[in-house]
């Protein structure tokens, strides 16, 4: 900008007031485009009928709170991690455990399945993200081939492979996200901007895109360009920590779940919040969210042990699912959308359909 030189001499206070006035201007500009609400336009959409969703499988075996889970691309295997340090790979269709590894730390808060199905990644209080190749050789100890990839200066809250087994994206309590090369453990890109712990992230579902969204304890959701490391969009309407973010299947929007007991939908093209999913009777935080395949349903797991199913377009709650006996901490829809899996502090995982 031509006026950059002037900024050198400005005081902190005047810079702050400039920023404030720009924020005001931005809000004004955005408000001009706010001609209607999503749920109003959605009135013409056919209402969904009665929902009958039940627990179809229960996975028992963890000795403590289940903190995270992820699906394998084969639509049936899942990996889950727990407070007791164990990471388990299950064939959730048969409920058989196929692999188990014990981490050297407790509170394994993040785990992810590699796209090839041949490895898993996990981490937590050890501040690292490690990759374990999955071996079917009974004589081989899974922990032996462990590869330490990411190193943060605080707990690892989330991890995800990008479109290959070779790169991992991580989020941490140290307030940053980072992209790593798995083979060398090298840091490829870091993402700075959150003012507090980053709790979650999700990669954009595009074939060509290079963006992801993250949510944190600073109540902000930020969209990042993976190439440049820059934040390209930010949203700050939640009143407390954002525990979970997930892209709408088209990649044009994303949902968030927060400790303020609401879930919200943000559209990237409108650059604003376009829907809020809340009820007077829901007072506990939402810990994890995910969309059904078409984006019509939003499944949200809460700290009140329930899962609420929302009609994304109309903004109403379609169903409430009881079953877990403690907080729901993690929730993911399966790759082909035939079911979703939830993990809970009650030590179990449930597959619902």
């Amino acid at each position: 900008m031509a006026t950059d030189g002037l900024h050198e001499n400005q005081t902190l206070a005047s810079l702050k007031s400039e920023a404030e006035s720009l924020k005001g201007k931005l809000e004004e500009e955005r408000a001009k485009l706010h001609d209607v609400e999503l749920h109003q336009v959605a009135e013409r959409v056919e209402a969904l009928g009665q929902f009958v969703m039940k627990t179809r499988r229960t996975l028992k075996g963890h000795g403590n709170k289940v903190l995270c889970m992820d699906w394998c691309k084969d639509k049936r295997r899942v990996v889950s991690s727990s407070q007791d340090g164990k990471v388990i790979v299950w064939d959730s269709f048969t409920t058989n455990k196929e692999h188990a590894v014990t981490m050297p730390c407790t509170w394994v808060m993040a785990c992810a399945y590699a796209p090839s199905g041949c490895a898993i990644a996990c981490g937590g209080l050890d501040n690292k993200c490690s990759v374990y190749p999955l071996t079917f050789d009974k004589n081989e100890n899974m922990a032996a081939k462990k590869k330490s990839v990411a190193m943060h200066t605080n707990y690892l809250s989330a991890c995800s492979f990008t479109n290959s087994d070779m790169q991992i994206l991580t989020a941490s309590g140290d307030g940053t996200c980072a992209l790593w090369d798995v083979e060398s453990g090298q840091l490829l890109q870091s993402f700075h901007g959150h003012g507090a712990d980053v709790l979650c992230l999700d990669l954009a579902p595009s074939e060509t895109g290079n963006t992801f969204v993250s949510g944190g304890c600073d109540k902000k959701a930020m969209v990042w360009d993976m190439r440049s490391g820059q934040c390209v969009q930010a949203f700050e309407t939640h009143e407390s920590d954002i525990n979970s973010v997930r892209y709408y299947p088209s990649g044009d929007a994303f949902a968030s779940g927060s400790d303020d007991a609401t879930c919200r939908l943000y559209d990237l093209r409108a650059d604003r919040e376009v829907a809020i999913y809340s009820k007077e009777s829901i007072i506990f935080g939402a810990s994890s969210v995910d969309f059904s395949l078409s984006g019509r349903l939003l499944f949200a797991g809460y700290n009140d042990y329930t899962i609420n199913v929302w009609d994304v377009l109309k903004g109403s709650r379609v169903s409430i699912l009881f079953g877990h006996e403690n907080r729901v901490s993690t929730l993911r829809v399966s790759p082909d959308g035939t079911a979703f899996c939830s993990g809970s502090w009650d030590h179990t995982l449930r597959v619902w359909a």
Partner: protein
Amino acid sequence: MAQGSGDQRAVGIADPEESSPNMIVYRKIEDIITKMQDDKTGGVPIRTVKSFLSKIPSVVTGTDIVQWLMKNLCIEDPVEAIHLGSLIAAQGYIFPISDHVLTMKDDGTFYRFQAPYFWPSNCWEPENTDYAIYLCKRTMQNKARLELADYEAENLARLQRAFARKWEFIFMQAEAQVKIDRKKDKTERKILDSQERAFWDVHRPVPGCVNTTEMDIRKCRRLKNPQKVKKSVYGVTEESQSQSPVHIPSQPIRKTTKEDIRKQITFLNAQIDRHCLKMSKVAESLIAYTEQYVEYDPLVTPAEPSNPWISDDITLWDIEMSKEPSQQRVKRWGFSFDEVLKDQVGRDQFRRFLESEFSSENLRFWLAVQDLKKQPLQDVAKRVEEIWQEFLAPGAPSAINLDSHSYEITSQNVKDGGRYTFEDAQEHIYKLMKSDSYARFLRSNAYQDLLLAKKKGSFLRTKMQPKLFCNQHRPKEAPLCQGSTSCVDIEAQGMWTEDVLEKARLPLALPHGLRTGQGWLPQSSWPLLPSDTGRHVASPGGPQKAHPEPGGLYP
């Protein structure tokens, strides 16, 4: 928005504790509890109830609480209200007077409200010495209702072993507490005793019950002020522990610098310059996308032949793995170019089409660049060179057509040989394929044939039929069965049952593999389909309105 410390005020001014996730919930519950006890604005009836020879002071029934919750929080389903009531109890704000287990029932069971002194929002972390004093004093009071439960007796025994050396001290404290208690009014004592017991039911719950004081370790650092934590009910603190093991010291807040604000200003200016869509357009787009894909969403539109999780039959997955795509899958390729690229089978079909036009180098280039981005760091440089040689270098065997500007940028990038070397070129080729080849592909005979399933005896033409295999409703049309004499005559039946459908669908001589969902029927044995006989069931091909069919599960 690239600020270091976000919106937090300078340390010491605002109380960061108030914004901690736990506190947010506590305040909401306290708000509910307060309203519930306010008889001026329609609170619950709190009464003293006569029972045998005594009175039970200050109680309310479960039913009254559940009714109140339903009315005041707009809850339609009593199950939900009971669940919320149970949670409020589990958190320690309401408790059943005759049970250690903190739950809520929609009946005449009596509940009492917890004293604000004992509210969880006071950051209680009572220590074992206090618990020991409490259990000890309970044993000193000779009242039936204060008798220790089994688990409490076990706890007491364990504590006696752990605190063997200072048990005399604990005993004395317990005696002192008993003395204090005796001075109180009888009714007041009843209430206080029950509240104290309920407090311990939260912090030392019955085995098997949820311990609601457990914290999410990621949120623990928020409690910046260890002094605020209350550790002792009876004014006694353990010397060894001065700080809770759960509190991890938080990092010092970085002060906002001029640089931070400058970055923020740059960011804000970029946002102001951004071209955004109107809400009405965005809403239309979201609705259109959802409507287009709803038929592919198994949790909204039942999957065919069945959802494996519901039916325990993995046929659906076997179909998806087979090389022959279903019509529904083929139709999806028509939604967007990305759909073709996403689907392995779609890519193969598109590639074959391009090969027939002698223009497959574009797709191959695009795939190669995708592959490049998946390579480990150490292999990147090599692959960049390979791609350059194959597609872009002068005299390349699979030369792609780039405009001079793109070519310039790319040849510059190649010198650095990074993962994103071909980003610009890839975008250009993507747009080219999308606007040119993709459109022609959709109009091609190859695609149209797949879409209309013109291939003879295709296994997957069942997609054209109404939901034959869904347990939820009865189809109107039936496939005719060809060949096998032991098959039931469907027409004569008139009505369906599941096993009739089964018989109609599968011929007698079944390859063993099919039972376990492996492999699929040889084409020759497949029954005739309605379209073969002119009995037309659904309109083939073309974009269809993706609404759930009438008479389906979701009217």
